[in-house]
């Protein structure tokens, strides 16, 4: 009966909570109820009742009937109430729900999710990056294993988005979700920035939020590619390594790609010690991330298609020259601008390891970000 059993993973469990007895038939009946109806991602879900839902709805001023996300092409929308049911189902604690709502707000600002990208053969997933005091308050991991398992807030906030996609929007595999292979991030993908071990201003502050505020920034991602560079303290070498990872031709569906560098604290420090700001890092990687025309031709991606600007061979019936060719260059940048590359710091400060997140679309515009309201104080 102790509240401690609901704490984040790893929290001390009090003595009285060590032994818990249940009616296992009842537990199984509840689990199977959801599983049989396909209201899950394949893993067991937390049973939700009206009284439990009330605790989630109490964390927001928003009306349960407010719409948090629409998919006009499906004629479907999700309300605060439905988002809360799915957050509870995902295993969120009620106090996580404001982050989930902010995530939906950020996802709404992104042009792709509302246009069917979550159903696409490409197989993308939403990735959430959380900044600000809410990280500590609810136990979001920003350090070691930041993309891994073991942290309830990270695991369940990301999963809340997935379960909503499945249950409210009907995006089930083999049905309205036609991903060819998809990504493990489809189970859950929510990280926090390691602001404490970053030499730079927090990511959300770059995006215009107040440092004292919390925020969720949403992205559409296909891959998280790891980068090993434990050997160097030369910023130009590290920038080139990151650029080479970003420039792989396999990522090129559109004329250009976009990405988010998730720098481990050690790598961020390599840049900072050399006096590089995040803007300098973006610029340096942008300048080094290119393919030769010959390298693109070798994989049949040297031109773009007329309407979609997807990469195709020059002899394709829809082929037109890419922008670099129009400018007379055989050096083809993979990013349309330094702004198509974002930089955050996350992970443990224990090795020269970083990740390049491949985000979907050419991008370059402002990232999709939303503030997480502070918890209501008494009388609020």
């Amino acid at each position: 009966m102790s509240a401690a059993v609901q704490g984040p993973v790893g929290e001390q469990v009090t003595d009285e909570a060590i032994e818990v007895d249940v009616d296992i038939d009842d537990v199984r009946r509840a689990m199977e109820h959801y599983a049989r109806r396909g209201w899950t991602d394949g893993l067991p879900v937390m049973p939700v009742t009206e009284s439990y839902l009330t605790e989630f709805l109490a964390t927001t001023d928003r009306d349960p009937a407010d719409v948090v996300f629409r998919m006009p092409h499906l004629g479907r929308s999700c309300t605060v109430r439905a988002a809360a049911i799915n957050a509870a189902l995902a295993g969120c604690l009620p106090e996580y729900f404001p982050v989930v709502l902010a995530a939906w707000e950020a996802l709404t600002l992104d042009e792709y999710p509302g246009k069917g990208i979550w159903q696409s053969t490409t197989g993308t997933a939403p990735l959430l990056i959380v900044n600000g005091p809410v990280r500590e308050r609810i136990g979001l991991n920003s350090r070691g294993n930041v993309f891994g398992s073991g942290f309830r807030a990270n695991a369940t906030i990301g999963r809340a988005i997935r379960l909503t996609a499945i249950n409210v929007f009907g995006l089930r595999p083999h049905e309205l979700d036609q991903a060819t292979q998809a990504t493990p991030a489809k189970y859950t993908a929510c990280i926090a920035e390691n602001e404490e071990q970053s030499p730079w201003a927090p990511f959300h502050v770059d995006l215009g939020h107040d440092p004292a505020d919390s925020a969720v920034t949403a992205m559409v991602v296909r891959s998280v590619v790891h980068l090993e560079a434990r050997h160097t303290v030369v910023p130009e070498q590290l920038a080139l390594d990151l650029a080479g990872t970003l420039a792989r031709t396999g990522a090129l569906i559109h004329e250009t790609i976009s990405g988010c560098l998730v720098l481990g604290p050690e790598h961020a420090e390599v840049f900072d010690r050399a006096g590089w700001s995040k803007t300098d890092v973006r610029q340096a990687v942008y300048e080094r991330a290119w393919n030769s025309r010959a390298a693109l031709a070798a994989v049949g991606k040297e031109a773009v298609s007329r309407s979609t600007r997807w990469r195709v061979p020059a002899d394709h019936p829809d082929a037109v020259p890419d922008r670099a060719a129009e400018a007379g260059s055989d050096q083809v940048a993979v990013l349309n601008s330094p702004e198509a590359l974002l930089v955050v710091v996350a992970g443990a400060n224990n090795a020269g390891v970083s990740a390049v997140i491949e985000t979907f679309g050419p991008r370059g515009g402002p990232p999709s970000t939303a503030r997480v309201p502070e918890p209501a104080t008494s009388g609020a």
Partner: protein
Amino acid sequence: MARELLLDPTGDGGAAGDDRLAPRLRTLRGARIGLLDNTKPNASVLLAEVARQLRRDHDVGEVTTYVKSYFGTPVEESLIQQMLKNCDFVVAGIGD
């Protein structure tokens, strides 16, 4: 111990649109075809071949191509109205 019903997580359910099939044509002879190009690579190539075979094998009538503004979103209502007015049937091609 209070017992409560488990909640349904699907929200207010799916779109309740009219999903009945349109009446089938009795013959393709002389019928006006619309080709709806979703703009993906190869869509226009595929649709042109479909039209060629329909002409050759079924003696269809006038062929008009329509182009979606973005492949991932529904066809604009104005385009639907044009197709309703000018076509007896429409072939939607998904290039890729």
